[in-house]
């Protein structure tokens, strides 16, 4: 029996789902041989409420979304958070750093009073999440890895060590040596340190490792010339911040 898979979106750009389709044709066919996609907003018109594996994308920003995701949890045997928004809150959490009314005003201007919003949160702040496809956008290869693991009934091979490990494996010169800063030392690896390898730095899109040494990372950013505010800004982008401000 092929497991039935459904994709759901919450507050986010849906960039994650689009990226998920970015597979080459042969791989896609192999993948579809193993699973049955019953609900995928971007490619399917028919919908079904009969599914075992639910991929949720986007962060939770309204009361209504809380109800919806709880329903999904009841139905699905396995829930996978897809992308940074669903997994760690993501860019949506930027608004948490200003008061709610202010956030509404920034986003909706005069129409703000018609909207109702709560602080943005990742899926696992509301329900139990079984697996994560991390990153912003999440990589296809990781999505495939998670699906394969689900089909084989084993834990996906997602490391609990920081990006620095993969950065060194790639033989990169550390950006700190070039006077830049980087969140690699506290961010979960699994992306092959792609940003550093391609000439940028890590901004933490895959979320923190399980036991990050935040204090030490802050001290290091400080030592390399960032002020306390800049340090917080740096962590804010993907809401690694809420963890950091604790």
């Amino acid at each position, binding site marked *: 029996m092929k497991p039935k898979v459904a994709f759901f979106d919450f507050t986010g750009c849906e960039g994650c789902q689009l990226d998920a389709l970015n597979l080459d044709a042969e791989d896609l066919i192999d*993948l579809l*041989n193993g699973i049955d996609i019953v609900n995928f907003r971007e490619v399917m018109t028919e919908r079904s409420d009969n599914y075992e594996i639910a991929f949720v994308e986007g962060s939770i920003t309204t009361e209504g979304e809380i109800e919806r995701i709880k329903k999904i949890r009841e139905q699905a045997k396995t829930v996978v958070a897809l992308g940074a928004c669903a997994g760690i809150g993501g860019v949506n959490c930027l608004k948490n750093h200003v008061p709610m009314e202010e956030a509404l005003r920034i986003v909706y201007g005069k129409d703000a009073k018609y909207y109702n919003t709560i602080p943005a949160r990742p899926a696992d702040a509301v329900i139990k999440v079984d697996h994560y496809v991390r990153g912003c956008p999440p990589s296809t290869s990781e999505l495939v890895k998670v699906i394969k693991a689900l*089909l*084989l009934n084993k834990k996906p091979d997602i490391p609990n060590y*920081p990006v*620095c490990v993969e950065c060194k494996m790639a033989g990169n010169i550390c950006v700190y040596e070039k006077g830049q800063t980087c969140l*690699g030392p*506290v961010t979960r690896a699994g992306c092959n340190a792609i940003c550093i390898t391609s000439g940028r730095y890590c901004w933490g899109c895959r979320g923190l490792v399980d036991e990050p*040494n935040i204090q030490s*990372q802050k001290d290091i950013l400080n030592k390399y010339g960032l002020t306390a505010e800049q340090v917080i800004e740096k962590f804010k982008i993907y809401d690694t911040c809420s963890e950091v401000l604790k």
Partner: protein
Amino acid sequence: MNESSVLVIESDPIVRESLSGWLSSTGFEVTSAEDGARIVKVFAKSDFNIVIMDVRLHSETQLATLREMKAIRPRIKTIIITSHPQEEKVLEAKKIGVVDYIVKPVDMDDLQKIIQGTVESICRDNVNITEDNTSFETSGDDLVPGIKKSFAISRENLSLMVENLLKETEVIGVKAKQGKYVYDRIYGFYELSLDYDVTVSPPTGYMFPAKETLLKFKTGNGNHVEPVIEYTPRVIIGVHPYDIKAIELLDEVFMNHNPDPNYTARRENTVIIGVDCLHPSPRSFAPSMGTNWTETGFDLLLTDIGNSYIVKIGTEKGAELLAKHTKYRLPTGDEIVRQKKVRGEALNRYKIALDTPKDRIPKILEESYDDPYWENRSATCLSCGSCIMVCPTCYCFDVKDEMAMNLKEGERFRRWDGCMLVDFAKVASGENFRKDKASRFRHRMFRKGKYILERYGKVGCVGCGRCSSACLAGIASPLEAFNSLAENIRLKEAATSVIQPAKQARHIYTPEMAEILSVRQLTEKEKVFELKLKSGKKLGHYPGQFVTVSIMGTGEAPLSISSSPLRGKNFQLAVRNMGDLTSALHSVEAGATVGIRGPFGNGFPLETLEGRDLLLIAGGIGLFPLRSLIQYVMDRRYDYGKVSLLYGCRTPAERVFTEELDFWQNSKEIDFHETVDMPCEGWTGNVGVITNLIDKVDIDPKKTMVAVVGPPVMYKFVIEKLKKRDLPDAHVFLSLERKMKCGVGKCGHCQINGIYTCQEGPVFSLTQLRSLREAVL
């Protein structure tokens, strides 16, 4: 006299018969004897060249026998079979005629090699008496490039050599990149920077890459498994002496004892052209580690003396390459002086050094195990792994399965891993054997300064300074640690060595296929499997050893062998459903094929247990490994005194092998007691912790040997109780669980201080464990 006449002395009839049988079938003339007393008599009558003898090296009588044999036949070559060899004992044995030793369990291939080598050396001895001193040194043309000779070569001719090499092979060299230096493929001599300070990453990655496939497999029918060994012949040019020393260490680790086929293939196809380091990095302390110069480990070694280079030849390969690709000449007197001078100047350029001789580091560390330094210094550690990823002497790895999209075929690959990473020593139950930063930090420093040196006789840190450049927290330099610790320390003598047992299959990572003959449910979470190797061979294990079980695509896990080796060709594994592999195993049925590697580890010390009273203690599924010993002892009951068995588990529902428990309960041959922590309705037996049962047995501490297997928490209490009953530490043996991946002493996961659980363990005497602080008792 026949060169291949062999005398086998072995007390275990099974081993003796099989060894003699095998030797005769291989063409040796064999006589066998049972014990030492009779040996000398046999000796007087017949003539032997080779003696194979099972020896307990700590037994004085047996050493005396060896001496006596040597006195009767001075030219006898003795090969001993032994367990737990210690270096001093081996040395002592070598003085009295022992030419080689082999560690139990005996690998027939190894034994054959050793015997073959011995026969050949006997033939050689016989020849050497007549035609002695044939010298290989030809005193002809000085320009014939020979090993150890030095020549001068101009920069142009060096360039010519590199350009010629580029025509026929891949060349890796040191290049400048973004203000730093890296190893990379080069396409022309002009790209090389031979006067660099240090590279960001070491050259060792060309022999031991960050990720590589070990096996390819197909699942389903037949379970096809195939080793993957990929390599590209290449020349690496510009390697500094400290990195050459690091490569020599990796050679020792990967090419001696359980040779790693993947590393070996790459290493054998790599030519190393070294270059003296004349402008060291300010973070390097190579001279303190004795690694700033090297006489070995390279094919060619260059020294930049201004207009030209001195090139020293290290190997035949290097000599050929030089002769084939370029022009060189004898160095002038002036050039030789210049080489001395530039080297002297280089030495003065090092900025930091050890405050204490490097030989003292192991002792310093030993005495600093509980120093607050570890905790304090590691507070800012990010567990980011940068220090170990850039280190030329680090070689730990993880092993994983990756399936293709079609889920029908896949690969088993390895990927760098290391002790500074949080999950390195974490097992499926969630227990992490190095859970805090301080213990990981300390472990790395102990590896660098002590464990590696003791295990391999080579320095574990070559002083390149890369880790301290890479560490953002600024704490990773071993030099800094050694110096800080040395300050407060009383110094004693360097520690002694541990020799590791040898053996194993040809491709150490390829499992052998085995068929599951039957599956039986023991409890809700546990099943027992009966297996047979498809080759039809016997597994050949000792009680207490373990195998790794593979299900291709899911992975591999270590499991103890649960049955006695004396009960036929089949063997049993009892398994608790804990995670990926174990749950996959639980879902297969009789007839399925799985992969097996091993047996691994030492097993229980049968020789020490023989003839004694035994107290066997199993907690929970600790009965799985212990059952192999219980069965073995029951099979050879006449060899032992009184045998008591204590078994405890949490609830009656968790009791495993219940029929056997009943059988033991009713048997007169074994004094059996059991208890549960929490009774249920209908339970009429004992209630309470297992230590209570110890009170129920009579113990004569002098005669009794104890074997304990159970969860870590149990050990502490059992040990306390045994102490109260006056049992000496040397009489108590425990089997420890650790995370394991490779089973062959490579991957590093199972390490407890300097010891590899998969090699020297999993069974340890309490005496041994007392000196292993990480064993936490």
